C-alpha cells in the first residue's frame, strides 16, 4: 500500500509540475513565417509595431505559405502567413501534433495581378484565356490578340499559396510543363520585366515596372484591374484573403500584435503597401 501511495504521489507531483510548467510565461519574441506575397507587408507591420512597442521582438521571414504552415505544425513559428486557406491534411497534422484546429485570422485582401511586359500589345484577358494559357492550350500571343510570338509562362513554386490559389481558381487543372517556376513574386515580376512575351501572376503589391493586365470573368464581362474599389465590389475576379494562422487563440503580446494589425494602424499600412484592407 505504501508503495502504491508513493507511486500515486510521484505521478501527482509530476503532473502538477508539468501543468505549472505549461503556464510559465513564454518569452515575448514572436516569429512569423510563410507567404512571400505577404512578407513585405508583414515586415512593415513588425517594423512599425516594434517602433511603438519597444519591448516587442518580432521576426518575419518568407518562404511560401506551405513552408509557413509546416513551420507552424512543427512548432518552428508562432504565426504562419498564408495566401491560401489551410488544407485539410495540414489541419489534421496540427490536430495530431498540438490537439488544436488552428486559428485563422484574415488580415488583408489581395487581387492576384497578371503581369505583362510593357512591350506586349495584349491589355486584357478573360479567366478562360488565362486558364488556357497556363494549361498550355494557348501558346501564342496572336491567339489572344497579341503578336505572333510564343507565350513565356512564369509562376511560383508549388510551396507557394499563390501557386495553389491560382491553380484552384484560375487554371483549374495542371500547369503547363513549360511554366518556369520562380522563388518569389519579385522574381516573377523581374522575369516578366525582362521578357517582352512573358506573363506572370502574383500579389498586387509587387507590380512595378510591368503592365497590369485587365481581367474579365468571361467574354461578356467588362475587364478590370485590381484596385481597392474593384476588389471591394467583387468586379475584379481574382481576389483572395490573406491569412495569419496560429496554433491556439492568441494571448499576451501575440494577441496585442494581431489586434493592432486588424486595427486602424495596421490596416492603414495594408493600403500603404499596395494591398487591400479586410473590411
Amino acid at each position: 500500500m505504501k508503495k502504491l501511495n508513493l507511486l500515486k504521489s510521484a505521478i501527482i507531483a509530476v503532473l502538477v509540475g508539468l501543468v505549472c510548467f505549461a503556464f510559465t510565461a513564454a518569452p515575448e519574441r514572436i516569429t512569423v513565417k510563410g507567404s512571400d506575397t505577404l512578407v513585405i507587408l508583414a515586415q512593415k507591420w513588425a517594423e512599425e509595431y516594434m517602433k511603438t512597442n519597444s519591448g516587442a521582438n518580432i521576426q518575419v521571414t518568407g518562404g511560401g505559405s506551405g513552408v509557413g504552415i509546416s513551420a507552424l505544425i512543427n512548432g518552428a513559428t508562432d504565426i504562419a502567413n498564408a495566401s491560401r486557406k489551410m488544407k485539410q491534411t495540414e489541419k489534421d497534422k496540427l490536430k495530431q501534433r498540438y490537439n488544436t484546429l488552428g486559428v485563422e485570422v484574415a488580415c488583408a485582401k489581395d487581387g492576384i495581378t497578371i503581369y505583362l511586359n510593357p512591350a506586349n500589345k495584349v491589355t486584357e484577358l478573360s479567366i478562360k484565356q488565362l486558364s488556357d494559357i497556363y494549361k498550355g492550350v494557348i501558346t501564342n500571343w496572336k491567339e489572344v490578340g497579341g503578336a505572333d510570338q510564343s507565350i513565356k509562362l512564369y509562376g511560383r513554386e508549388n510551396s507557394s499559396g499563390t501557386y495553389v490559389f491560382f491553380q484552384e481558381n484560375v487554371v483549374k487543372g495542371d500547369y503547363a510543363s513549360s511554366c518556369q517556376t520562380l522563388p518569389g513574386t519579385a522574381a516573377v515580376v523581374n522575369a516578366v520585366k525582362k521578357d517582352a512575351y512573358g506573363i506572370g501572376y502574383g500579389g498586387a503589391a509587387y507590380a512595378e515596372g510591368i503592365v497590369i493586365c485587365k481581367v474579365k470573368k468571361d467574354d461578356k464581362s467588362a475587364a478590370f484591374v485590381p484596385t481597392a474599389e474593384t476588389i471591394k465590389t467583387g468586379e475584379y475576379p481574382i481576389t483572395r484573403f490573406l491569412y495569419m494562422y496560429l496554433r491556439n487563440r492568441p494571448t499576451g503580446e501575440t494577441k496585442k500584435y494581431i489586434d493592432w494589425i486588424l486595427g486602424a494602424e495596421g490596416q492603414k499600412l495594408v493600403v500603404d503597401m499596395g494591398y487591400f484592407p479586410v473590411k
Partner: protein
Amino acid sequence: MLKTILFVLVTVLALNLKAQEPTVSEKLTEVNDKVNGLLERVATDEADLQKLAKIKVSGYIQAQYQNFETPTLLAKSQNYFSLRRVRVKFTYEAADGIKFVLQPDFAPGNFVLKDAYAVVNDRWTKSWSLWAGKFNRPNYEVEYSSSQREILERSLVVRTLYPGERAIGAKLEYNPQSTPIHMQVAILNGADGITVNNAAGTNLNAADNIDYDNSKDVMARVTYNLPLGSFGGLDFGAHGYFGSLKSMTTLTYKSDYTSSTPSYVGEKIGKNWLGGEFQLFADVLGGLSVKGEYISGKNASIGYAPAGAVLGSANFVNNFAGSYLYVIKNLGKRNQLAFRYDYYDPNTDIKGADVTIKQYDATSAWVKKASSKSDLATTTYGIAFHHYLDDNVRITFNYDIVQNEKVGRTSGISNIRENYTQADGQVVTNGIDYGTIIPQNVFSIRIQAKF
C-alpha cells in the same frame, strides 16, 4: 640594318599578337555558346531532378528500453533494449493524382512489408480515391500514425481485431472538397494476420498474401468534422466490419459456453462488429483533446474436423466489447502529456467469476472447450509524457498499468493458476493466481527519430 630587322620583327610580332586576340564578336559568340551549353546541361539536370522530386522518402526509428513487471523473477528477461519500429516509406507520385507507396519495417528479426499500395485520385472532382494493395484498415486508431500516437501502443481491442493493422484489398475513399465528411469502403481478403490451424497444427493461413477462403470481408468508416467555433472541433463517426471465415469443421461453439450449432466445412462463420468514435479538440489551456472509441460485436476463430482418433476442435464465436479513451494535453510547444483508459473484454457472455466453471461437456469426438484466461477482460491505464527535442526527435516516458479481470476464488485460491520458472530454473507450482491482479505493468522509454 639592325634597326630595320628589329622594326620588322616587332611589327610582325605585334601583328601576330593582334591576330591571335579574338575580336569582341568572337568572344561574345564563344560566351554565348558556353552559356547555351550550360543551359542545355541545366535543362537536362532539371528534367532529371524533376523525376527524382517525384520520389519522397520518409521514415522513423523507434529505439526503446522497457521494464516488465512480473509475478517474480522469471527466466525470461524482464527488461531490455529493443528497436520497436525501423521504417522507411517510399512514395512515388507518378503523375498528378497517382501515387505508389512502399513501406518496409526493418526491425531486427521482424522484417515485414507494412504498406504496399497504389492510390489513384479522381482528377475532376478531387473527391474520390481508389486504393489497391496492402494498406491500413479503415479505423481511427489503426490509421493514426505510430510516430504520432500519444500512448506507445494501440489499444488492446484494436490490436486484437486488426492484427498487423494492414490488410490486402481495395478501398474507395470519398473526401468531398465542400463538406467535411469522409467515407471509406474497403473490400479485403479478411484473413490477414489470422491463424487457422488444422489438426496437425499447420497454419492454413500462413501465406497471408492470398486469401485462404473465397469470401471477402467489407469494412466501412464514415466520419464528420464538426467545427465548434473558437472552442475547437468535434470529429465523430462510426466504422463497421462485415466478414466471415470459412469453417473447416462441423461444430461451432459460442462464448456463453452453453449453446452450440452444427456447421459444415465451407460454411461462412460470421465476424461482424460496429464501432463508434469521437475526437474532441479544444483550444483550452494551449491545446487539449479527448478521443474515444467503443467497438462491440462478434469475432470468430476456426477449428478443425475430427479425423479418426484425432479429436476435432470446434469453431468458436465470441461476443466481445472494447473501448478506449484518451485525454491529451499539450504543455507548451515541446511537451505533451497523455492518459489512456483501455478496456477489452474478449467474452461479454460470461463474467470473470464464471471462468473455468462455464464449459462444454467432454465428448468422445471433440477437444474439451472450457472457459479460460483468454475469456478474461483486461483494463490498461496508460500514462505518457513526450518531449520533442526538435521537429524530428521525440523522447517518451510511458507507463502502462495492466489489470486483468479476476476469476472466482474458492478457499482463497482461484481456479486458474499457472506455474512459472525462476531464473535459477526452479519451477514454482501455481505461482501465478488469476484470482488476483497479476503484475504485468510495463515501463518504457522510447526515443523516436523521424526524417
